Structures are given as structure tokens and as C-alpha cells.
């Protein structure tokens, strides 16, 4: 491992792939964010109407569950992360302080609710956010936050609160940093394996997940009219947009990021099928964005008509485009 002297801050689209990428880059493995996302098979879709989030909204996820990127990248690349969880809050902070004093750059899971540098409107109780701690000055930790342009600082007490927030997906002081990176990593040979895995996850998963989940959501939306109040439908559509475009996804609910991965794969492997695939994936991403746009419009204009069949059709178009890509990619593996 060739560890760099200075930590270099950059913004990333997504918190987990962002922190993992910046940790790997700091430890001498030049890799892009879409590559990490693709290799760890981060793309997924899930719509779980029976699990409610804050505000009574169902879970709509555009990627695999939190922490799967850290696990997936270890399995795929053969890199090793030291992963720690704590019960004792004081010990957790002491350990972090010790690591930071040794100039170790550490990824930390934190709750957005307790991070003071975010705008107040954003501080929702979401526990699976990831940040990088890369130093300590005057009792304050230096934070590299993937969605803020410059590095920020956080007080020790605030960080402790954020690391030990309670609730679903509680961080429990979760911290991680790479300890071993193989001398030679042949990324090219791993790409096809990862594509195959993503394919399997998207096409093979049962109804509320994968491609089937997209059509399930479409049907669900279509049948919603008359069953629920107008206010609920509008805020559900707003919630879907929020999950797809506003929490860091790289646009189009990770679809653009996956297309960027396919493009990089094409540049490395030069298989024509990958070129077609990444162009098609871009189209799918654009369709997703169209869908989100109509949802957002319905949410914002309270007096407009709710055209649920139209919205459901837009979603089906996005789903079909995505399904086509996965069916196409199935041939290579």
C-alpha cells in the first residue's frame, strides 16, 4: 500500500461509494466512483410498501442495502478493510482519536440528524450516512463530506452523537479503513463477473425487488387512485422523487452512475456490446428522470390533476428500457 501524505478531498455522488472510493484512492489504488459502484454490484431496485420510513412513507431504494458496498468491494477486489463496531461510546471515540493521531484516514457511519454542518432542512433521522475523518485540530475532527465542496469540521461531542444515534440501521460507532490492498489488481477480469452479478440481482429477484419491483411499483401507483387521499398520493410521489434525485444518487437513481461504469468497462475491454449497453442505460436513466420530473410537478402544484396511469406508464417505460439492457448484457456472461 502506498499511502498518500495529504488527504485529497473530492465530492462524490453517493456517500458510501464516495467514502470507499476516497479511502481506496488515499491508500494508493486509483479507481473511479462508478467503478466501485459497478464492481460492488451496488445497483438494485426495491419498493417495500410494508416498511415505513419517517413520515409514514414506504421504502423506495435504488441501490443495494447499506454496507453492501464495503462488503462487495472486499470480496471482488481482494482488498481488506478493518471494520469495527462498538457498544462503549467513550471507547469508540478514543479509538477514533488514536487512529487519527496515527494519520490513519477513517470512514465512519453517522446519522445525518446530528451533523451540524448540514442545512437544517436536510437533517432528517437517516442513520446510514458515511463520512471520512482525516484529521484532528484543536479538538475538532476534520471531515471530508462527499456532498459538500470543501472540507468541514465537527466537534467531538457532535460526532459522538452522530455515531451513536439510535433507531433503524443504528451506526453503533461503525468505522472502517483499508488495511491491505493487493499489489496487482486486474480490474478488467473482474468487470464481467460484477456485471453478471448485477444481472442476476436485477432479473432474478422476486417481485418487490429488481426489475419486477419497478413494474410492481407502477401497478401499485396505478391502483392508488381512489384508495388513498390526494394529499397522501402527492407526498408519496414527492417522496419517490426525493429518493431518486435528491439524496446523492448521481442522477436518475444511480442509473447514470451505472452507465458511467459500463462506459469505463467498454474503454477497458472494448467489447461492442458494452458500448450499446451504456448508451441504452443512459436512455433508461433519462426515462427515470422524466418520471421523476412529472412526479415532482404533481407534488409541487397542489391544484393540478393527478394523472396516475400516465405516471405509471412513464415508470414502465423506464423499467422496460432497463430490462432490455440487462437482457442484452446477459448474453456476454
Amino acid at each position: 500500500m502506498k499511502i498518500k501524505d495529504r488527504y485529497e478531498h473530492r465530492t462524490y455522488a453517493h456517500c458510501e461509494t464516495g467514502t470507499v472510493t476516497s479511502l481506496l484512492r488515499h491508500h494508493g489504488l486509483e479507481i473511479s466512483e462508478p467503478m466501485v459502484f459497478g464492481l460492488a454490484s451496488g445497483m438494485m431496485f426495491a419498493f417495500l410498501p410494508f416498511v415505513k420510513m419517517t413520515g409514514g412513507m414506504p421504502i423506495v431504494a435504488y441501490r443495494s442495502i447499506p454496507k453492501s458496498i464495503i462488503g462487495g468491494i472486499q470480496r471482488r477486489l481482494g482488498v481488506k478493510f478493518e471494520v469495527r463496531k462498538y457498544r462503549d461510546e467513550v471507547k469508540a471515540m478514543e479509538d477514533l482519536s488514536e487512529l487519527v493521531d496515527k494519520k490513519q484516514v477513517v470512514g465512519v457511519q453517522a446519522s445525518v440528524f446530528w451533523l451540524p454542518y448540514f442545512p437544517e432542512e436536510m437533517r432528517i433521522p437517516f442513520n446510514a450516512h458515511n463520512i471520512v475523518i482525516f484529521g484532528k485540530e484543536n479538538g475538532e475532527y476534520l471531515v471530508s463530506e462527499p456532498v459538500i465542496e470543501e472540507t468541514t469540521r465537527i466537534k467531538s461531542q457532535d460526532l459522538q452523537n452522530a455515531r451513536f444515534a439510535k433507531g433503524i440501521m443504528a451506526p453503533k460507532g461503525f468505522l472502517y479503513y483499508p488495511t491491505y490492498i493487493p499489489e496487482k489488481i486486474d480490474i478488467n477480469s473482474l468487470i464481467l463477473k460484477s456485471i453478471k452479478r448485477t444481472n442476476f440481482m436485477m432479473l432474478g429477484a422476486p417481485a418487490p425487488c429488481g426489475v419486477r419491483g419497478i413494474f410492481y411499483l407502477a401497478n401499485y401507483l396505478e391502483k392508488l387512485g381512489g384508495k388513498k387521499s390526494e394529499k397522501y398520493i402527492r407526498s408519496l410521489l414527492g417522496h419517490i422523487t426525493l429518493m431518486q434525485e435528491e439524496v446523492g444518487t448521481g442522477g436518475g437513481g444511480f442509473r447514470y452512475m451505472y452507465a458511467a461504469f459500463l462506459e469505463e468497462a467498454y474503454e477497458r475491454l472494448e467489447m461492442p456490446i458494452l458500448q450499446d449497453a451504456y448508451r441504452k442505460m443512459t436512455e433508461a436513466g433519462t426515462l427515470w428522470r422524466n418520471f421523476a420530473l412529472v412526479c415532482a410537478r404533481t407534488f409541487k402544484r397542489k391544484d393540478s390533476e393527478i394523472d396516475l396511469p400516465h405516471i405509471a406508464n412513464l415508470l414502465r417505460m423506464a423499467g422496460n428500457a432497463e430490462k432490455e439492457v440487462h437482457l442484452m448484457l446477459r448474453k456476454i456472461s
Partner: protein
Amino acid sequence: MTTEEVKQNQLVTRETRWKTMAWTIYEVDDQGKYKTTFERYDDHLVMTVPFADAFQEKAEEVKQNVLRNESSPIEYFMYKRLLDPKALAQAMGMAVWRLKRHFKPNVFKKLDRKKLQEYAKIFKVQVDDLINFREDA
């Protein structure tokens, strides 16, 4: 400062805080290659703000109830800090029905200081702000 000025001030500080945020978006350029760009507060359709505003509206409603002594400050601060009963109950580590009991003014008055301290920590206010209700704490 008048109320209107305060509101205007809040709006300005809100915007400056949002300006530091940069949503990275993957986009195709003219040659069909992927690059990363940023979406800012100005051109990004911020959905988060209307969502937060919905909570603030709720908080305003509850505030009237608190002043009429029909509800407790806990309910007000819960909505003010973008929490709902489920999220707050999880953060406090107790059942939702127990939390909702604390919304009753009579029950709230009997809460001991330790419990109030726990609430105050989550709401980021002083205990006194809870006891003698101060809305903008």
C-alpha cells in the same frame, strides 16, 4: 427587527448554507462520454425544502395547541426538528405510546428532569426551554 425582516434573514442564511452543497451528477457530454457535474441550489429542484416545510407547518399547528395548553412542547419540538413519533421514539429508545403520553400536558408536567434532559439533547435545546415553553429555542 420586524417579523418580516427576520423571515427574510432566515431565508438568506438558508440559501447561503445550501450553496455549499454540491450534488454530483453523472452526465453525458457532446462526445457521448461521461463526466461529472454539479447541481446547485439554484438549478436543483430542491424537494427537501418543501418536505421540511410540511413539518414546520405541522409544528405551527401544534404550537397553537401548546399555547392553549392542549399539547406539550415535546410534540412541537418533535415536528420542528423534522421528526415524527416513530423516529423520536426510536431515538429515545422507548415505545410510541409512551412518547404520545408525554404529549399530554398533565403527564408532561410530571416528567422528571432526567427524562427532560434526554429530550432536550435530541431537540438541541436547554431543559428550561422545554419547561417554560420557548418556541424559537
